[in-house]
């Protein structure tokens, strides 16, 4: 840590750290070196407000987060026990006023997170030196603020933050496009020549219709035409990473480009944490409960441990507790693979009593959950492992808003509906899918976004404000096509006023 120095852990905590770390390693957890720091509530709240990085760039929203955490803490509504940073070495902050048992539990929990950060595939592309990187970002932005004024830079950051979720969360793992070469003049030349009719094979008259069948020729001509249209389109394929598109194509000043890229980098860094909330917390809870109940607890600790543990896993009717769902799913998977309750034979079995007592003694549970924590994210985790039995056992239901009663009501207890609702919330982090369709709309350099409509409308007031912020980045009018009240609609902002244009029914 560059700016803040904290004292090492007191002897009694250092001792249990060594113990807990030993237990964690014995279970096969694999983590970066973990540094614990003991800090006071207001420091912890401040660091939590900064997303875990005390050296982050200055921005009012961190102040707002802090205000909320601090007031919540002062009035006894909430308390942060611990904070873990995905970094190498892993930093973990502990609240000084936690009781001794709590510290044990929290340490065990932290090692679960550290293991997850290091081994889960979705974190594999994140910067493990983010602590340094964030400090670097902070310095750069502070320098711009000194040079161009706090208000100017802050306003620009606000605009960037408005589109920070318009990134392509899968792009670190796949190659979407060939890197466009700016110096490839040949290709354009070639294309011009090839724009004519589709290639014909040389043939004699009586063989013409066989060697060059008209149908194939027509199809080829279509394809060529399509290709041509595509080539003139910019970008050729819709781009999910709106931030990158803006970064590469908007007329921004160098410092603005830098700020935008900082916001984008941080968004990519935090994305996997949003993608694996249930798994990450479930995994950490699984390990704190395993380590504590098998090794860590002493007789005097039991009541406090139980109190804290059950508080963490408490569920509420309106919000699924990720800790609870995660730990239960991991336990369920472990149990199923221990008893061999998987595969075709088990799935095809119709005999209820046989299924209930199914136990092949496979004993693969532990191995399976380690595999699951390596390759899955929340979306695939739920898709793959949420079962009908699990839903029943844990009394899951889907709920919706009933305008007649101005209340949220239980909608259904049917497994497919619950699963669908959950998957919907997890798809793209529960946010609308938006991509750039045209960066030169109407041939006037306007930005045209497209919302891939999946049955849920955009919140229009927010959409208008977001467009205004996007306009600040793009510098030319911006549009987004979406569906409102069953009608295809284009929302536009041209720097002066908002426009809403209806353009026809949705084609199913």
């Amino acid at each position, binding site marked *: 840590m560059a700016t803040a120095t904290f004292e090492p852990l007191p002897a009694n905590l250092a001792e249990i750290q060594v113990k807990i770390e030993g237990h964690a390693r014995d279970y096969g957890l694999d983590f970066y070196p973990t540094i614990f720091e003991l800090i006071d509530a207001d420091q912890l709240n401040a660091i939590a407000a900064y997303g875990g990085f005390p050296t982050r760039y200055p921005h009012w929203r961190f102040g707002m987060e802090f205000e909320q955490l601090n007031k919540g803490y002062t009035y006894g509504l909430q308390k942060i026990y611990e904070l873990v940073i995905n970094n190498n070495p892993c930093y973990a902050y502990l609240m000084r006023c936690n009781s001794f048992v709590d510290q044990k539990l929290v340490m065990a929990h932290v090692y679960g997170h550290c293991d997850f950060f290091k081994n889960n595939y979705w974190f594999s592309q994140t910067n493990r030196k983010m602590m340094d990187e964030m400090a670097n970002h902070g310095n750069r932005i502070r320098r711009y603020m000194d040079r161009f004024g706090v208000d100017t830079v802050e306003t620009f950051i606000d605009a960037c933050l408005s589109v920070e979720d318009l990134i392509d969360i899968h792009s670190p793992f796949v190659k979407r496009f060939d890197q466009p070469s700016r110096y490839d003049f040949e290709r354009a030349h070639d294309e011009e020549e090839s724009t004519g009719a589709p290639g014909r094979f040389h043939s004699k008259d009586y063989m013409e219709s066989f060697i060059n069948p008209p149908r194939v020729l027509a199809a080829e001509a279509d394809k060529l035409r399509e290709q041509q249209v595509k080539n003139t389109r910019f970008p050729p394929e819709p781009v999910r990473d709106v931030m990158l598109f803006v970064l590469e194509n908007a007329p921004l000043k160098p410092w603005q480009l830098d700020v935008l890229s900082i916001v984008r980098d941080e968004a990519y860094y935090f994305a996997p944490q949003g993608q694996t909330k249930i798994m990450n917390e479930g995994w950490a809870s699984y390990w704190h409960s395993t380590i504590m109940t098998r090794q860590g607890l002493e007789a005097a600790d039991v009541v406090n441990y139980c109190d804290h543990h059950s508080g963490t896993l408490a569920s509420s009717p309106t919000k699924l507790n990720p800790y609870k769902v995660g730990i239960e799913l991991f336990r369920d998977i472990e149990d199923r693979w221990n008893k061999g309750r998987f595969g075709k034979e088990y799935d095809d079995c119709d005999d209820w009593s046989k299924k209930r007592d199914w136990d092949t003694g496979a004993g693969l549970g532990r191995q399976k959950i380690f595999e699951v924590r390596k390759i899955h994210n929340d979306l695939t985790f739920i898709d793959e492992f949420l079962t009908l039995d699990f839903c029943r056992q844990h009394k899951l239901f889907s709920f919706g808003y009933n305008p007649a009663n101005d209340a949220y009501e239980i909608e259904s207890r049917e497994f497919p509906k619950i699963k669908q609702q959950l998957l919907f919330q997890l798809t793209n982090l*529960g946010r609308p899918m938006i991509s750039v369709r045209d960066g030169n709309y109407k041939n006037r350099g306007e930005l045209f976004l497209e919302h891939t409509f999946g049955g849920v409308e955009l919140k229009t007031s927010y959409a208008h404000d977001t467009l205004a912020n996007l306009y600040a980045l793009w510098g030319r009018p911006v549009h987004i096509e979406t569906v409102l009240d069953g009608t295809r609609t284009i929302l536009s902002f041209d720097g002066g006023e908002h426009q809403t244009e209806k353009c026809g029914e949705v084609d199913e």
Partner: protein
Amino acid sequence: MRIEHDLSRFKQIVRGKIRQNLRKYVTNGEMIGRKGRDLVSIPIPQLDVPHFRYGKNGNGGVGQGDGEPGTPIGKGDDGEGGAGGAGSDPGRHLLEVEVSLEELAAILGEELELPRIEPKGTANIEQEKSRYTSIRRSGPESLRHFKRTYMEALRRQISSNTYVPDRPRVVPIREDRRYRAWNEVNLPEANAAIIYMMDVSGSMTDDQKEIVRTAAFWLDTWLRSQYKGLERRYIIHDAAAKEVDEETFYHTRESGGTRISSAYRVCAELINRTFPPSEWNIYCFQFSDGDNWGEDNERSLDLLKNEILPHVNLFCYGQVESPYGSGEFIRSLDFAEDEPRLVTAEIENKEAVYACLKTFLGTGA
């Protein structure tokens, strides 16, 4: 820590000092929710960075617990917004805290930067109080100040060289005695009265009464923090006016026309009868949709200027926007600019209550 800088920046934005375009995102939500006797819950202001987000019909989610389909599980938020998705950030629900009324008044004063009220005419309403603040050489034995007495005795013995350090015996004599004594201090005992007047004619809807209720609650809270004894009186009127209790004030639904002068008449009588202006700080708050009967305006203004304004600290007129009313009454009060004791404000919706409070109380009259 750095966070303090960010925090003060956030607070400045919330108060609209800097980056004023952001202020519209400040969500105040429901300003009050009375809980218990002296506790209220207040939401902490939040600023949202706009994003593309799902709107109304995206609300819903998965929960856990008992209940049949159709069982309500929670109250809907007003308007858009909704339960957070399991995978994304926790739902951005307003954080509510419970605070006592005194704290609330302090927060209100700080948030709105209200000046502390100068009680009116302290000379008239002072009360004498005794404070034991000085020392005298004579007095009743019950008030004797032992420590001082012995100090004096010791001093006398040392100066007269009768003090023997080996045998330290201090014996006070008559002249050494010191007594506590009192001074008369004048403590201002400010009395304040609030008189609320509300138009309950047919054109005032429940929503508008809710606005009045909210505004009245905050006015109450602030004034109560400023004065010890606070009397409240309520007057409702349509074409005729009467004094009512608090309960009735907020819950009546009358109908009929509007004659503001009738309320002014009752108000003036009330002041004369119960609150002699020499002893009372009087605050009048009137809420109406401003849809007064045309020929009544003249009489109203006459009453206001001659029989009410000279006696009160502050007369505030809040005009609630109404779907029916013409709202012209506020225009006939345009002499408010020259009259520091008359303040007018238009309240379009609930959000505007905030601004209205600032207007009303910001004068510190």
